[in-house]
């Protein structure tokens, strides 16, 4: 075990996997000489050389498409798209090829590839630079979607992503990069996909989050305990596809209440899928309708006050929980 930030844990995962498997190579904008926009790949060019750490032109569609072809050619690419906002330019390759080729080819083609990208708002970069699209990617059958909330999970999940023969969309919330935590140094440390993490046990309400929103959920749980004597259970989904609904359902059957928190827009968001599944599987256990806390349905503005008013906060989570205990 060693204490490190999430960005360092991600780098450890990349290093260890590259040492383990020579078919892994890294490709992306400014990941080599510069070390990556969020310093995740720092030092890897020096260690592994130009053949395995490749600085690319600004050409997202080209990079992802090349990753798909390289994967079909027997390699295991890691493509870094800098931020999730730029993945829109690669969407056709991701959705029409990476996600579909295996099924369409009757299982002949595999696309083992990890696409990493930073996500989330809150940095006053305005609407084009503040997306949360975890749920959008989970919508496409054929993609696995991973969104770690802490350093240890980031490492275990990223290493696990390279043991997968499918394309894994690996989404890193920018607010999480600097969060420190104890990280195992066992090179075989893996976290299985589709296993949610109960971050905090509780009896009165289940709060579900993923990626960045896990932190609003845990802060809200602490406030609820201190100020309202409400005991909240917090679940970090860790992966949206596959999705560990069993853990959520078991928790809701215990607490009888469920609040879903996400940074993404509410309308058509992943929280709606979660709410629907809770309704289908635990309707008779619910003491209140499932509540959703999400981003307001507006392109994220630059001005700080407006941006924070749009994004979900821990106070919003507390309010949602309190609303369930009224009347």
């Amino acid at each position: 075990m060693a204490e490190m930030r999430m960005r360092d844990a991600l780098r450890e995962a990349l290093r260890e996997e590259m040492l383990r498997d020579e078919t892994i190579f890294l490709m992306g904008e400014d990941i080599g000489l510069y070390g990556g926009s969020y310093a995740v790949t720092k030092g890897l060019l020096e260690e592994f050389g130009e053949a395995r750490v490749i600085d690319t032109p600004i050409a997202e569609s080209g990079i992802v498409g090349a990753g798909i072809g390289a994967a079909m050619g027997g390699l295991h690419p890691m493509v870094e798209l800098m931020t999730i906002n730029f993945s829109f330019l690669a969407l056709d390759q991701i959705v029409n090829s990476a996600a579909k080729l295996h099924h369409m080819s009757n299982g002949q083609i595999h696309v083992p590839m990890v696409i990493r990208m930073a996500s989330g708002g809150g940095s006053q970069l305005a609407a084009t630079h503040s997306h949360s699209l975890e749920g959008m990617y989970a919508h496409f059958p054929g993609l696995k979607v991973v969104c770690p909330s802490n350093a240890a999970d980031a490492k275990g999940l990223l290493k696990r992503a390279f043991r997968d023969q499918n394309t894994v969309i690996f989404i890193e919330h920018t607010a999480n990069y600097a969060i420190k935590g104890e990280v195992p140094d066992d090179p075989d440390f893996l976290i299985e996909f589709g296993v949610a993490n109960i971050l905090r046990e509780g009896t009165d309400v289940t709060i579900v989050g993923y990626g960045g929103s896990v932190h609003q959920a845990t802060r809200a749980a602490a406030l609820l305990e201190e100020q309202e004597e409400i005991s909240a259970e917090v679940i970090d989904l860790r992966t949206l596809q596959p999705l560990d609904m069993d853990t959520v359902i078991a928790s809701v059957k215990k607490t009888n209440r469920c609040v879903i928190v996400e940074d993404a827009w509410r309308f058509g968001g992943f929280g709606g899928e979660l709410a629907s599944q809770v309704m289908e599987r635990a309707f008779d256990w619910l003491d209140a309708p499932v509540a959703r806390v999400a981003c307001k349905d507006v392109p994220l503005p630059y001005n700080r006050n407006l941006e924070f008013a749009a994004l979900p906060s821990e106070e919003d989570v507390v309010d949602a929980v309190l609303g369930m205990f009224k009347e």
Partner: protein
Amino acid sequence: MTGISTDVLLDIHRRMVRIRTFEEEAGKLMESGKIPGALHLYVGEEAVAAGVMVHLRDTDQITSTHRGHGHLVAKGGDLKRMYAELFGRATGYCKGKGGSMHVSDLDLGMLGANGIVGAGPPIAIGAAFSNKYRGTDDVTCCFFGDGASNEGTFHEAANMAALYKLPVIFICENNGFGEFTRQERHQAIHDIADRAAGYGMPGVVVDGMDALAVYESAGEAIARARRGDGPTFLEYKTYRYFDHVGVRGMGVIYREDSEVLEWRQRDPINLMEARLAEQGLLSPEGAAEVHEAALADVREAIAFAEASPFPEPSALMEDIYTLTASAGGGA
């Protein structure tokens, strides 16, 4: 400088100085934390915006980039509303919703800075199409970087522009880097203008530190577009003095300080001032006055911005959809 009127020369100089002053002051405010977010400053590249924009009317459009302040200043943008936008104030061009990377001014044909690299070229050819369709002789100037010249969007737009003979000018600001990646590490060619031939339009390589060379090359391309003879690709070799974001441009890992100093030797404003002095068109005192006037305007703009209110909370959910009815009567 033969054939260029004194007024135009002084105008180009003044625009360059206004850009530089605007950017240097904005950089200081970003460093001190007063302006949030990310500022991509245009210092070093002023000759391009000034030399092109001096040809344009308010009805000519431009598409800009993440590094867009210089384009709007040169097109005659209101410094007050620009600074108010950087400060996130209600009096800003976008009511504080867009910020540095998304400033626009439709009255000046400024179709927007754009946070997405390569988003501009397709939009530019569409604007050019609208000019042709409506039968005007307005043109659209599309600014983009060497880095952006590798995005598929540029290539799709360039092909269509030549195919439809659209009144658009592709203005590639080759500052040698896409973020921290040197041009020779992101494309195998040296002159990006070589690509123009592949689409069937003229491509011209120009010294982007020389405002007069910019002025002349842009003038020809713009005249050609106005005549209906189609697009031109202009590559301006230039350099960004500062870092990709913010101010620090020296002591960085991706380039040598000596390279920065070398480019600074050919500073576009100094170059212009030396020439104007040589011709007896602008004395050192006259030049100093231009700088002082620009600084006074910028300071006034900053004071205006800082005194301006933040947008009301209600502004958040406004302007998501327009409430203006379309000509056809729909909403």
